């Protein structure tokens, strides 16, 4: 959708043309005007993004227990603790990082490939395609809390529909590898519509003349896909991969509700551990340090991803 559909407003004709000299440029009478327009957003931006961005680092350099009056400076200790073998936070933290890493590794390929297939299925000229697109996207508008309680029921080993229709007794939530299969499967089902819609927009931006040219050259469907569709989707692919990696690394709600970190702490993902450490046990200094380590890891992954895509483009 773009601006074409919008009616032009009724702009009054100037009653009598003023002499050209008095024609004001669309600059502003008062130099304060732009700042007045910016002010409401800037206040929010300062208080909830800029200040916390700096404050978070400050917290991570202290032994910051929310419940205690004293918050002693500890320098980089919260960071070095994460890397020393005899600290209490290091072990569980890296376990949780590993859990997030596994979830990302399992879910990203599926969330890149399956939505592309669905988008190709949806990108055909038959009646009712808008309806099907709307159906596939529907789970995505529901929140993770609804999705979580619904699938906990569906995946219940005794009374869940999944085991009933499979005729199996699979411990979907309480044992490995099933807990990962469940979390990844539910996430794919839930968020597939998002990537599909993005792919679909990309597919529809590919010039149909390219397909016609390929057909003239005798290319079959598969060759058309490889030589027209995939190259045409490259910027979209970079976006989808990047956004999906970020979203997967932010995973929290699904394991919080469905597996509750079990079995053991196998599916206790990084954000679950960070939030519990900082906002339940109020060990906020350590939790802040952990969140910066996770952010750094994410930035590194994003850079690698970007470089890989750029090099393939040459």
């Amino acid at each position, binding site marked *: *959708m*773009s*601006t074409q559909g*919008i009616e032009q*407003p009724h702009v009054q004709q*100037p009653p009598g043309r003023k002499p050209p000299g008095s024609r*004001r440029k*669309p*600059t502003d*009478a008062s130099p304060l*005007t732009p700042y007045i*327009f*910016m002010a*409401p*957003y800037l206040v*929010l931006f300062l*208080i*909830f*993004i800029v*200040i916390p*961005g700096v*404050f*978070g680092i400050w917290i991570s350099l202290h032994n910051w227990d929310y419940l205690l009056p004293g918050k002693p400076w500890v320098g980089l200790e919260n960071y070095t603790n994460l890397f020393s073998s005899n600290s209490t936070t290091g072990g569980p933290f890296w376990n949780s990082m590993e859990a997030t890493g596994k979830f990302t590794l399992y879910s990203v390929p599926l969330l890149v490939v399956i939505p592309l297939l669905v988008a190709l299925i949806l990108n055909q*000229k*038959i009646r*009712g395609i808008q309806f*099907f697109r709307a*159906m596939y996207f*529907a*789970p995505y*508008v*529901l*929140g*993770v*809390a*609804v999705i979580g*309680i*619904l*699938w906990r*029921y569906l995946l219940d080993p005794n*009374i869940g529909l999944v085991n*009933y229709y499979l005729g199996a007794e699979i411990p979907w939530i309480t044992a490995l590898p099933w807990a990962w299969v469940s979390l990844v499967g539910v996430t794919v089902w839930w968020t597939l*519509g*998002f990537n599909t*819609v*993005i792919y679909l*927009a990309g597919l529809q931006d590919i010039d149909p003349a390219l397909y016609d040219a390929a057909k003239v050259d005798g290319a079959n469907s598969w060759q058309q896909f490889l030589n027209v569709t995939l190259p045409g989707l490259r910027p*979209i692919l970079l976006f989808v991969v990047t*956004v999906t990696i970020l979203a997967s690394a*932010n995973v929290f709600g699904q394991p919080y509700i469905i597996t509750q970190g079990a079995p053991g702490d196998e599916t206790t993902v990084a*954000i679950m551990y960070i*939030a519990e450490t*900082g906002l339940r046990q109020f060990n*906020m200094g350590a*939790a802040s340090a952990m*969140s*910066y380590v996770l*952010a750094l890891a*994410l930035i590194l992954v*994003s850079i690698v991803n970007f470089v890989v895509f750029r090099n393939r483009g040459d």
Partner: protein
Amino acid sequence: MAQTTASTQEKPARRDPAQLAKLFLRYAVLILLTVVFIAPLLWMLSTSLKPLPQTTQFPPSWIPQEFSVQGYSTILTTSSQTPVPRWFVNSLVAATAHAALVLVTASMAAYALARMNFRGKNILFAGIIATLFVPQFVFLMPNYLIVDYFGWLDTLLAVIVPGAAGAFGVFFLRQFFLSLPKELEEAALIDGANRYQIFFRIILPLSRAPLATLAVLSFLVNWNDFLWPVYVLFSPQNLTLPPGLSILNESYNVKYNVIMAGGVIASIPVLLLYLFAQRYIIEGVSRSGLKG
């Protein structure tokens, strides 16, 4: 995006048997996928309308053999630990106020960034956009303390205000404002209109579609937000629906008709919104992808 509508107007092709079979196969795949995505949601609705013994009964019945509003009445006759109607109102208030706050602050800032010249504009815009790439979880601890400093912990303000600092709305609306023809504003300036009049009488009325998109997306995101409210809201009567559902899930353990009734109640507003504003939601998402 206009191509999709054009595609449905394809001339009815000659229907030889091979083509018919192909068409049938296509629809079979499309319908099968629909079942995969919709059936779990129908199961939630169906379970919520069953008496408790039927929720664990095999073979499962997709249409309740006996309808019961037991699940809903359990929720609606407010228990002090799981006041679902209260959570519903809280969620509605929070998501509406959040969307309104985003619309006002983002549209004003976006207009200044798109159309005015002022000192520090470019660096400011670069700084705002840069925060789109900072993962939200690094703000978790400091924002908890800031919200606490304002005395907003365990109040709806904690879930309404901080999220409105996100840069998406500013970025999204600025792109749209840049695409509007400048001549309209120049003509209005000649007429002696000031910036405020231009903004409210020309720019905003021209921007109904993107404003609606941003409002709907902000409402959805806030309605569904889970991580932040789980930690900043604690009293049963102050929760929004997502953290509430998580508690409902624990306190009613295996009473799935009650739990699914909670799920249905939390889903109805967003599914209605999706039904009526589907275009805005899907276009908003696909555009965020193209512009990213």
